Every structure is written in C-alpha cells, then in structure tokens.
C-alpha cells in the first residue's frame, strides 16, 4: 500500500494553510476596515474560487503557468522554475483556491468586534499594529481556528484544480483525492477505500476539534 499520497496531501495542506494564515490574516484585516471600490474588487477576486468550477480555475492556472508562453515562460527563463506538473504548482493552486476559506471567517469576526475596542486602544496611544496584535486577534480566536481548519480540510479534499495543474505524478503531485480516483479507475477498490477512510477520519477529527474548542470559547460575550 503506497501511503505517499496521504503524506503529500498532509504536506500540501500544512504548507498551504501556513502560507494562507500569514497572508490571509492581514488581507482579512484590511478588508474588514471600511469599504472602497478596490476592496470590493479584491474581495470578489478572492471569493471567485467558491463559485468557479475547480477545473476552470485549474485550466486557467495551467495556461498562465505553462512554460511555453506568458508568465510561465518568463518564470522558466528568469528563475528556471516551473509550476506546472510540480509540487510548487499544487501549493500555488491550493493557495488561490483556498484563500476565501481563510479570509472569510477572519474578516467576518473582525467586523463583528465592536468598533470601540480598536478606538479605545488608539486613545491609549497604541498603533493599529499593536491594536491588531494585542486586542483584535486575541478576541477572534475561535474564528481563527475555524478559518485554519476549513482551509486545511478544503486543501485535503482538492481535486479538480490540483489535477489540472499538477497531473497525477506519483510522489510529486498525486495527492490522496487523485489517488482515490486513480484507484477506482484501476478497479482497485481496496486502495480507494483505504485512502478515503484515512481522509474521512482526518477531516472528521478536525471538524470535531473545532466544535469542541469553539463551544468552550463561546463563554466570551463576543462570540
């Protein structure tokens, strides 16, 4: 039994979620502060993967990063790097595809905090960054956990977009969801079942953890 698709999936989910947490948190903060036309456009672009068929997104990423032309050719020529049919490509596709799962819950939580919390911090002489770090983030912990778990779970289950840009290369781009499909294609139902069961158990434990943690945290009046 080849368990490399499971490890590859976990590695992809961990890297994608870490990157999205670092990038998504400030983006969610920026989006939560007031409204502007630019923010509307950015939010629409971030939200697109929620409604777009994964294969469509994957197709455009495949075209954009194809080493034969455009951006992909430039990356190949300048940095000698290729995103198509590589693990880097999977990370890039997952990053784009899972972005709304990270920014959405965090943005909503920040918007639900009373404006006066940040204002009180400002009148104490604290900068927006100090306020963000010491007042805002600690008071949205349940939403942060929800965002992290949603992103992880979503990355674990990606199929279409990953298949389009990464293909099905064993040990490189064959993640668990593709391994399930591949096993079924080969009529190897036992292997498909093993991969599916492992994915099912991992995601179930993750979702249960969120419910347990958030129930405990719900003692706060703000949640």
């Amino acid at each position: 039994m080849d368990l490399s698709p499971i490890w590859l999936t976990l590695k992809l989910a961990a890297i994608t979620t870490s990157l999205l947490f670092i990038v998504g948190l400030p983006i969610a903060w920026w989006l939560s502060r007031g409204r502007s036309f630019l923010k509307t456009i950015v939010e629409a672009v971030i939200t697109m993967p929620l409604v777009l068929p994964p294969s469509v997104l994957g197709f455009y990423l495949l075209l954009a990063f194809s080493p034969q032309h455009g951006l992909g050719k430039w990356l190949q020529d300048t940095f000698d790097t290729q995103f198509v049919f590589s693990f880097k490509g999977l990370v890039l596709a997952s990053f784009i595809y899972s972005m709304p799962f990270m920014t959405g819950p965090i943005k909503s939580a920040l918007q639900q905090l009373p404006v006066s919390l940040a204002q009180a911090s400002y009148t104490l002489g604290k900068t927006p960054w100090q306020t963000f770090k010491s007042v805002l983030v600690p008071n949205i912990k349940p939403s942060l956990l929800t965002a992290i778990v949603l992103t992880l779970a979503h990355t674990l289950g990606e199929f279409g977009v990953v298949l389009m840009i990464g293909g099905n290369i064993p040990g490189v781009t064959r993640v668990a969801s593709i391994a399930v499909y591949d096993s079924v294609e080969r009529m190897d139902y036992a292997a498909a079942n093993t991969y599916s069961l492992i994915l099912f158990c991992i995601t179930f434990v993750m979702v249960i953890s969120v419910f347990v943690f958030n129930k405990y945290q719900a003692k706060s009046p703000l949640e």
Partner: protein
Amino acid sequence: MIDLSIEKKLKVYQGKQVLKISHQFVPGSITKVYGPSGAGKTTLLKIIAGLVSPEKGKIVVDNQTWLDTGSNINLPPQKRMPGFVFQDYALFPNMTVLAHLQYATTDTEWIKRLLFLGKLDTLTDHKPIYLSGGQQQRLAILRALAIKPKLVLMDEPFSALDPDMKTELIADLKLVFKELAATILIVSHNPQELEGLADGELYIP
C-alpha cells in the same frame, strides 16, 4: 485652554442634522455635556478624541492645533491621547483587570492606586465577563485615567453605578482630576447626576 469650533453632519432617520458647536473649555474645568438623545454628544467627544472627523472645524488644545480642516491638520488619537470612557465601556474581553491597566501604562504605583480607587484591587485577575456592570464601568474609567491624560472625555460614565458607589467614586475622582490638572468633559443624560462635580455645562440642542 481648549478652543473648539466644529461642524459635522449627523446621519439621522429621515434626513440630516448638523452638529455645530463653538465652545471654550477652561483648563482644569469639569464640563457637563447634555442634550437630547441623538443630538451628537458622543460624536462631539469622538471628534475631540480624533476618532471621528468633522466636515469643518478647529480644535486647539493648550496652543497646539489638534484639528484644522482649513489647513488639513488632523492629529490621530494616538497623538491626542485623551482619557476616553466609552458608553459601552469598550473593555478588552481577552484582558484581565490588571492587564487592561498594564496595557495602558507601565507605572505600577499608579496602577495600584487606580485599582484601590476603583475598588477593583481584589479583582485584578478577573476578565470583564466575570465583572458586574458597575465593576466594568469602573474599570473603563480607571483605564482612561491610567495614561494620566490632560483631557478626559467620559460618555455616560456613571450610568451603571449604584448611588452610594457613584457618590464615593465621584468624590475620589475629583481629587484625581485635580491632581492630574485635567480638563474633563462628561456626557450625561441625567442633569442631576453631576451636581457638585461639574463647574460648567454645554447644552447640545
């Protein structure tokens, strides 16, 4: 001296109303700000604090211009640093009583004194959710005073206190205000509430 002259459009149900105020506040004075609901009392305090910007106006505090819309001067709240007591207290749910004050100042002696003044010295490790309404309100007042402000803006600061606690706290606050030589603006719905404390008043129609 605080010279204030501001004009701000207020959004109200079915139409617009203009908050237009010109006033001078004597240094060290305690001014009661009162008027009907929705007149703009809270907005006035937030404009002075730099949390809300008016369409037109000028605020000069001790010869320093905080706001001048004509010259595009608008100091942020971090540079004005008024002691602000919010109507909804705006306490930080993640911080204990002590952490609130430590977030505002590093002066441990001052923190001890404030905790004693607000009768919260036995509740230092409690988070706001475990405090009563009156205790929360006192913590909001203490946090505002923790930065030793020269200007204190208080929005309905005594509404959740029982009469005895209110009388005692007001007497103590008077001494602290005098020690800080701070100018105080207190918004109140109850004109009788500040009798004996305020030495001036500003009515917002």
